[in-house]
């Protein structure tokens, strides 16, 4: 049973929590303490009136591990809701990255041209550099960063994934 080679899948999990001191530490401590992966984690308050925050976690594991992760999250007292967006139908997931590219000449022109293709905006410009803001699915952001590498990529800052289910129903 334990030895059966099982497929490892990536899941995006949305967690609605009380916005209180230590709640993020509880979630992160759970992942480190039980040896689960965190590929990306974002957190921000989404309901100031009820003081609720939303944590979006991208993690990977076998079916049993993913089920464990969700059940362990549900066990935490400040956790209100846990939703596996990957399982529960179509979802939109987006990430924002700020990408700094330095250099001159042809490379600078090429960087601008690719940024245009990716609908990335230049949010800071100097004579030697751009900072591009690119928004999209993780794969798109990955692709943009890869293309910037030979063109003078010097720094990247990413937000991690924010995700939401398609359709009219709330979490």
């Amino acid at each position, binding site marked *: *049973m*334990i030895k059966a080679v099982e497929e490892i899948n990536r899941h995006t999990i949305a967690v609605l929590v*009380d916005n209180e001191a230590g709640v993020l530490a509880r979630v992160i*401590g759970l992942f480190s*303490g039980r040896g689960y992966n965190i590929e990306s984690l974002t957190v921000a308050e989404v309901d100031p009136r009820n003081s609720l925050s939303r944590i979006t976690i991208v993690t990977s594991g076998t079916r049993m591990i993913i*089920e*464990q992760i969700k*059940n*362990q999250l*549900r066990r935490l007292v400040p956790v209100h809701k846990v939703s596996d967006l990957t399982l529960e139908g179509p979802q939109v997931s987006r990430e924002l990255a700020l990408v700094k590219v330095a250099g001159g000449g042809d490379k600078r022109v090429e960087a601008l041209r690719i940024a245009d293709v990716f609908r990335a905006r230049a949010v800071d410009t100097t004579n030697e550099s751009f900072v591009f803001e690119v928004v999209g699915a993780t794969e798109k952001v990955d692709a943009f960063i890869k293309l910037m590498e030979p063109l003078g990529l010097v720094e990247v800052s990413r937000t991690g994934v924010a995700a939401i289910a398609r359709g009219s129903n709330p979490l």
Partner: protein
Amino acid sequence: MAQKDTLTGAEILLKALVDQGVEVLFGYPGGAVLPIYDELFKQNRLRHVLVRHEQAAVHAAEGYARSTGKVGCVLVTSGPGATNTITGLADALCDSIPVVCLTGQVPTHLIGNDAFQEADITGITRPCTKHNYLVKDTNQLARTVHEAFHVARSGRPGPVVIDLPKDVTQGPGEYQPPSRVKPKYKPQVKGDIRAIEQAVEIIANAKRPVFYVGGGVVNSGPAACQLLTQFVRMTGFPITLTLMGLGAFPASDPLFLGMLGMHGTYEANLAMHGCDVMINIGARFDDRVTGRLNAFAPESTKIHIDIDPSSINKNVAVDLSIVGDAAHVLEDLIKVWKARQCRADERALKAWWSRIEEWRAQDCLHYESSNKVIKPQYAIQRLYQLTRDRNPYICTEVGQHQMWAAQHFRFDRPNHWMTSGGLGTMGYGLPAAMGVQVAHPEALVIDIAGESSIQMNIQEMATLCQYRLPVKVFILNNQYMGMVRQWQELIHGGRYSESHMDSHPDFVKLADAFGAVGLRATKPGEVDDVIKEMLAVDRPVIVDMRTDASENCFPMIMPGMAHNEMVLGPEDRAMEKPGSEDDGMVLV
């Protein structure tokens, strides 16, 4: 100082504890909790038991909780006072024991400044508590205490820490009664009725069934244990209990196969291995129970009833799961079983029982008796025979003596067996027995101990004497950390690395030094007299039972082996294998 309607934090705290039904606190004072101790001094509703070490305070609260079904309560100071509770908290978390631990903290303006006796207690205790709180506002204190007790006792019970900065307990604030606090934490207690109906169907069609029941049923309460007994007897199925579950079903009932697992009985483990339907209620497929997972009950349909969804499909994938409280689910199971007029398959069951009786005839708990040295099993059997009519509360430390007690002491009622199952904490038994005796002043409370374990919290003998708690400490003294020695003999080539202590205290003199009574038996013929003398004394007693040093605890499933590969005794060594699986997984 306090105006009308406002109280000090310490006053609010004690009022909240009283409103939560707390009668006794196990604690130890210090700088950060002086306002609370000052308030304790002025009242007489709450009793305080002054322990000698904070770890013992938590174990005492565990013993109190486990023997009464109430929440145990601890009060300690900041820094070292709080860090000393960690082992107790981790123990209570593993064994799902409801405890609320109040820790002092430096004043809020000093938090994070490395102040004297400051430690990040909410940070340190996060992974070893069910939940914890840092109270920063005196007005939030009452609400937090009420919520903490709710969290500790609801769902799967566990320890909760409330960290109390000194200014919060000194400052003024408003009290809120429990009725004004709406709990946010609401675990599911009713099981899904469709799943319960499916379960009844599977149970009714079983040919080789077994109930595998754990501490969850004891935690659910005496009603759950009664319903379990009723349901098991209705089906006529065999039942085995985990270490934590002992007492949930009467051991004297012929349907009871004994404990299962690493030192469980032959019949219980083989019934698990050969069953076609396994009904797990309130147990968690612990590695000490399952043995090698890929050979665990290979032909069985598994039903798992548990209040904690994260216990389901954690170690073992099951076929049907029911999340809910054991009492609620058992009640529904019985209802559906009766409504459908279900009958067990008598013929199949008869054949199954005849196989089980063959296994039982092995008499796996048999040992070579001796008239020269005291066999530890003999000492426990005599203790059981001479105390059973007094319905004693039994606590244990951890090791061989614990397993022998689990094998040879028979429990017909729940809440009479206190042992550290999950964490395996040496030093648990004596303070736990103290907590039990505080809760049941008239009862016979015995701590079955080893000479090594007992020394981990031996200081609590002073507490027993101070409060005239007549706990009987029954030491099986074999001069070794017996279970370590046993593993070294069986698995590590007899290299007894650091498992022997050349120097032990004279336990009889030690008892005397504490103001207790010390007794000793060195020959089998003395065992009965010493036990009778121990029972006759109305004071704390230490019994130094000098037992056979080389005795091993059998039967045993060696690490990494399956239920059907048990080693039955010292002459049955053929099946011994090293402690690692083919794929290199190390088994502990």
